[in-house]
């Protein structure tokens, strides 16, 4: 039995296989419509998330399976003080696979250690968010045709943004990747990413604070929201949130074949005027998220997809 806790739990080869499967799902949706008949996915969301939870639920429903779960800690036994490990032991009796989001870092790993069903980390605090990474990789691979030889700009909250940490961890395994890390000094990537991932793997990177200067360099621009819930004080949040706003003027500085990705939801960091730019890929990214999660559920449940008919 396997879990997905970190984006590094799958090898590059396994990721390729999973993304090939996601590609086949995209082209042949009917073929997979009953692949998970009779299976149940539990979505354990200890903090609010519309997008990720609905994406998981949409993925399981598209495979013919069913879903159950909760969408806030207040509506779970956590409000009575139940541990994550106990909740996962209980859920293992109710479902065949589960996705867990929790505000504390490492919660999904604790859950996986206790569970007897596959556990998917749907975000653990500011730490990892591997299914967003799968989504990001699938989007880039589908729209760019490759995952190597690219300059990737990551912009916004790089300190607490778990999607950024997971994406860096995943992309450093492909050849020819360079990073431009665009953030205010206070929101730069944590040292376990800088030292433990970038420097350890000799990945070329630069840390800059000016989005305009970085624009012409980029094949991919990955925008992130400055999340209010990650700050201890509101003053600090208000000071930071408007630092990096992508608008048409900034887009004019970028390459013609650049892609703009965003894990969503956005607040104001991408102006709506950018939405119609053909380089804006963030809504297509949402659709790829469903395909990636469908492929992941099939893989972790070890469903024999070769036996499915068209």
């Amino acid at each position, binding site marked *: 039995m396997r879990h997905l806790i970190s984006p590094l739990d799958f090898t590059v080869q396994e990721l390729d296989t999973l993304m090939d499967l996601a590609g086949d799902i995209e082209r042949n949706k009917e073929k997979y419509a009953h692949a998970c008949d009779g299976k149940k996915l539990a979505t354990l969301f200890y903090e609010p998330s519309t997008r990720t939870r609905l994406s998981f639920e949409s993925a399981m429903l598209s495979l013919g399976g069913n879903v159950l779960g909760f969408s806030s800690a207040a509506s779970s036994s956590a409000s009575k003080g139940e541990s994550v490990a106990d909740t996962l032991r209980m859920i293992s009796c109710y479902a065949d696979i589960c996705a867990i989001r929790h505000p504390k*870092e490492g919660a999904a*790993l604790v859950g996986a250690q206790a569970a007897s069903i596959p556990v998917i980390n749907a975000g653990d605090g500011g730490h990892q968010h591997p299914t967003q990474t799968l989504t990001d990789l699938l989007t880039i691979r589908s729209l760019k045709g490759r995952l190597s030889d690219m300059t990737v700009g990551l912009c916004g909250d790089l300190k607490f943004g778990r999607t950024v940490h997971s994406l860096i961890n995943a992309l450093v395994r492909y050849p020819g990747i360079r990073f431009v890390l665009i953030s205010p000094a206070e929101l730069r990537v944590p040292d376990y990413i800088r030292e433990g991932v970038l420097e350890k793997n000799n990945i070329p990177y630069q840390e800059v604070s000016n989005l305009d200067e970085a624009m012409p360099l980029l094949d991919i621009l990955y925008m992130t929201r400055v999340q209010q819930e990650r700050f201890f004080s509101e003053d600090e949040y208000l000071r930071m949130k408007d630092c990096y706003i992508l608008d048409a003027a900034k887009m004019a500085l970028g390459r013609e074949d650049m892609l703009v990705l965003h894990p969503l939801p956005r607040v104001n960091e991408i102006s709506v005027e950018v939405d119609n730019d053909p380089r804006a890929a963030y809504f297509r990214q949402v659709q790829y998220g469903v395909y990636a999660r469908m492929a992941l559920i099939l893989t972790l449940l070890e469903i024999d997809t070769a036996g499915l008919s068209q």
Partner: protein
Amino acid sequence: MLNISGLKEGIVLDHIKAGKSMEIYKYLGLDKVNTEVAIIKNARSNKMGRKDIIKIEGGLDEIDLDVLGFVDHNITVNIIRDSKIIEKKTLSLPQRITNVLHCKNPRCITSIEQGLPHIFFLSDEESQTYRCLYCEEKYGQKS
């Protein structure tokens, strides 16, 4: 010079970096054992200049070599029987240490989950860096 009698049966932790013996005393839980324990601080050493030594009479059921390796992997562990050294154990940096360090990251699951062991893993041997297994927070100050 201070004179401390030899051990007939027991364990001698030698070549402890001067000043580190109380830390090791605490990590090994020697405050909770009833046997005789001698702590020698700042003993003269040809090799180290000054060193600490801990002598434990009768020994312990099990010495946690990982803890010792983490605190100071240059320590020599001498097992004594019939007043003779019958075994010398050398230490290395452990890959994993459990319930020795405590994660201080308030966002880590270890801050709320009951009964969860605090586990740190060796993330970089060269810089001797340990990180929390759950949140990957770098080990900072010993707790």
